[in-house]
């Protein structure tokens, strides 16, 4: 395995990404989008495409930059730092990774459009309050050469904005079976598909998708019928790792804002950052962030080098990132005091995004259990 240290290329990528999100996607941008009722800024997304970010996981012969999962994690982390909102994770990470596992012309075409920033994808997998692909109950009934999809998917990130949706549906077995699932790639405008954007606290696009006998052809199936998880698994892991990286960025952003505040704010005739109890808590938080950063770097490395053995590394990253982001935003709000509770101040946005990001594609408990299983208990 290669070193956990970033290469020169990676350091350059991070610096560039950091500069871009700081200048072009500060938290004020998210605030403006929220106040406008908009999930993200399409102009920002177009710029990301221009910089090649949308193609970070798209093969070069499909027009992508193919920089790998460590690079994707660096981008996601920097976006998390300023809460830059875009369909990056669902489109450029989950969909791109899933589609490159499919050797069809249609998939290659879609990958090209993803790289170009011309196509937004969403992943519709969960139906209940917790991430659980096996619990899929949504039916895809055979109908002639095709299928008819009926059921409800929820917590679909970028579901209301997406042009196309990856949908996991059941073609055999019953809810709870790991087998019998099939993955579909469906036009979001298809008849019978209703999309309701949920008013989630992070002001991002999460939608409930209701499928009422939506028609799908055999060409819409990704991979094999009844074996959709074989294809989707890599996309899920990539998404989990990238969300872990974003959460590390959220933690880092909240931490930086908080330490900055501790250095400036005076109370009782002292800088509050000179109070030892706050110093120790800030130092502990920094330690947690450092340790989580190692798990994130490792997840990217394993996804790039031995993707078939990535579940432990990915779940470790997501479990750690969830706990670390949680600690960072809780400490952030508390250390800011009253001002941190006001909507006028930015720290609350970090708390909201951390909560939502923690839930997406498996929370701490889900991933900690995956780690335990991988470690034999």
């Amino acid at each position, binding site marked *: 395995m290669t070193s956990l240290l970033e290469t020169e290329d990676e350091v350059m990528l991070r610096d560039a990404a950091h500069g871009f999100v700081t200048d072009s996607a500060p938290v004020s941008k998210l605030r403006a989008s929220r106040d406008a009722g908009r999930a993200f800024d399409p102009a920002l997304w177009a710029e990301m495409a221009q910089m090649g970010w949308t193609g970070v996981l798209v093969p070069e012969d499909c027009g992508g930059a193919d920089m790998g999962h460590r690079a994707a994690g660096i981008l996601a982390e920097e976006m998390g730092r300023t809460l830059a909102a875009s369909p990056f994770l669902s489109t450029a990470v989950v969909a791109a990774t899933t589609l490159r596992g499919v050797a069809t012309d249609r998939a290659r075409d879609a990958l090209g459009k993803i790289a170009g920033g011309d196509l937004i994808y969403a992943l519709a997998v969960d139906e209940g309050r917790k991430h659980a692909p096996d619990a899929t109950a949504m039916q895809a009934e055979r109908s002639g050469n095709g299928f008819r999809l009926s059921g409800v998917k929820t917590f679909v990130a970028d579901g209301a904005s997406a042009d196309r949706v990856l949908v996991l549906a059941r073609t055999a077995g019953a809810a709870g079976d790991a087998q019998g699932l099939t993955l579909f790639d469906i036009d979001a405008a298809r008849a019978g598909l209703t999309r309701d954007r*949920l008013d989630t*606290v992070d002001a991002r696009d*999460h939608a409930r998708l209701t499928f009422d006998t939506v028609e799908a052809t055999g060409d819409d199936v990704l991979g094999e019928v009844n074996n959709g998880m074989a294809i989707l698994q890599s996309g899920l892991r990539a998404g989990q790792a990238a969300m872990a990286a974003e959460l590390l960025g959220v933690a880092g952003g909240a931490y930086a804002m908080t330490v900055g505040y501790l250095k400036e704010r005076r109370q*009782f005739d002292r800088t509050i950052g000179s109070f030892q109890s706050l110093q120790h808590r800030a130092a502990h938080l920094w330690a947690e962030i450092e340790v989580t950063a190692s798990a994130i770097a490792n997840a990217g490395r394993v996804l790039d080098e031995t993707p078939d053995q990535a579940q432990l590394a990915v779940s470790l990253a997501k479990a750690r990132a969830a706990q670390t982001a949680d600690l960072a935003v809780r400490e952030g709000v*508390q250390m800011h005091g009253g*001002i941190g*509770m006001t909507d006028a101040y930015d720290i609350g946005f970090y708390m909201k995004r951390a909560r939502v990001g923690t*839930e997406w594609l498996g929370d701490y*408990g889900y991933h*900690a259990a995956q780690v335990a299983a991988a470690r034999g208990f």
Partner: protein
Amino acid sequence: MADTDTALDAFRADIAQWIETSCPASLRNRPMGEDTMVWGGRRWQFKNDAQKDWLEAAIARGMTAPRWPTEYGGAGLSRAQEKIYREEMERLSAPPPLESFGLWMLGPALLAFGNEEQKMQHLPPITRGEIRWCQGYSEPGAGSDLANVQTRAEDMGDHYLVNGQKIWTSYADQADWIFALVRTDRDAPKHLGISFLLMDMDTPGITTRPIQLISGKSPFCETFFDNVRVPKENLVGTVNKGWDIAKYLLTHEREMIGGGARGLLGGRALGQVLGDLEGAMDDPVIRAEAMACEVNSLAFAMTMERYKDRAEAGQGVGNASAMLKYYGTELNKRRYELLMSAGGSEVLEWDGPHGALAPEWLRTKANSIEGGTSEVMLDIIAKRVLELPSR
């Protein structure tokens, strides 16, 4: 009338009878919420006639302020009688006829520090729900350092001229009067030079602006004072000694906020609520945390009971109230974190299938900040209770 057992039994029967008769059935057994609360004030609109009837019956008997002397509109109950009254109110599921910062905060301050004219002017209207009060302590930039009062009241001979700004003034936009800390001596050490001043919110120069929180709308406001002329008789207690009154009231406030953790979730066990979220308790992480929260919540409820017993026995609670405030608010935050975690994607909306859990969760984050941060509470415990040294 001495508090003999016989006399108290008779009191209990009488007060229970009165509650039964006076508190309309439609008000009873209802969950507490903004809709059920009666705050009073010049602009108050009752939600229904039953609320009005119940308040009027309580005013007639002085029961909006059970322990205040009758000459100020109270019922003049003894400590033992008041305990019985609360027990019967709880047993009969009757709501308080009136909520008010006047009853909770200003009244006790005036009774302890006010002169006779001030008591006569302000206490009876409070008991009748005619005047609604708000509290002006915090200032922008002061944070936990409440004694860092910059709003100044200049002595202009026949009046004070007030200039400055307060923040976190709950319901200032709906209040009729404000009691505030103002600086009357800029050269004195920080804790001296502060006075306790009463102001009619209709006085020219006072304006308010609501504060939006991370959890959404809030009762909090910013309140601005721009050359506000205040009669000198509105100063309570001794000039430059207002910090003594503030400290006295902070203890009250702490107990109120810390106690919030007890009555949550309608008295249901946390685990029962979680049990409604099918499958949530299968996760060992959630289950272990639910067990811990339940154990701590029950033990904290007993602690509230023990300290209440102590107060009722005439033993002071004093600085230990900082512990109740600290523990109750931190525990409440932890419980809501658990609920959010158990609710998963179903509770991420501002208003979702399980109600407005997300804004409640965000709102709990202020519990450990308002009324003195957890850090200030720990400082108080360390210095005043544990008597740890400063050098």
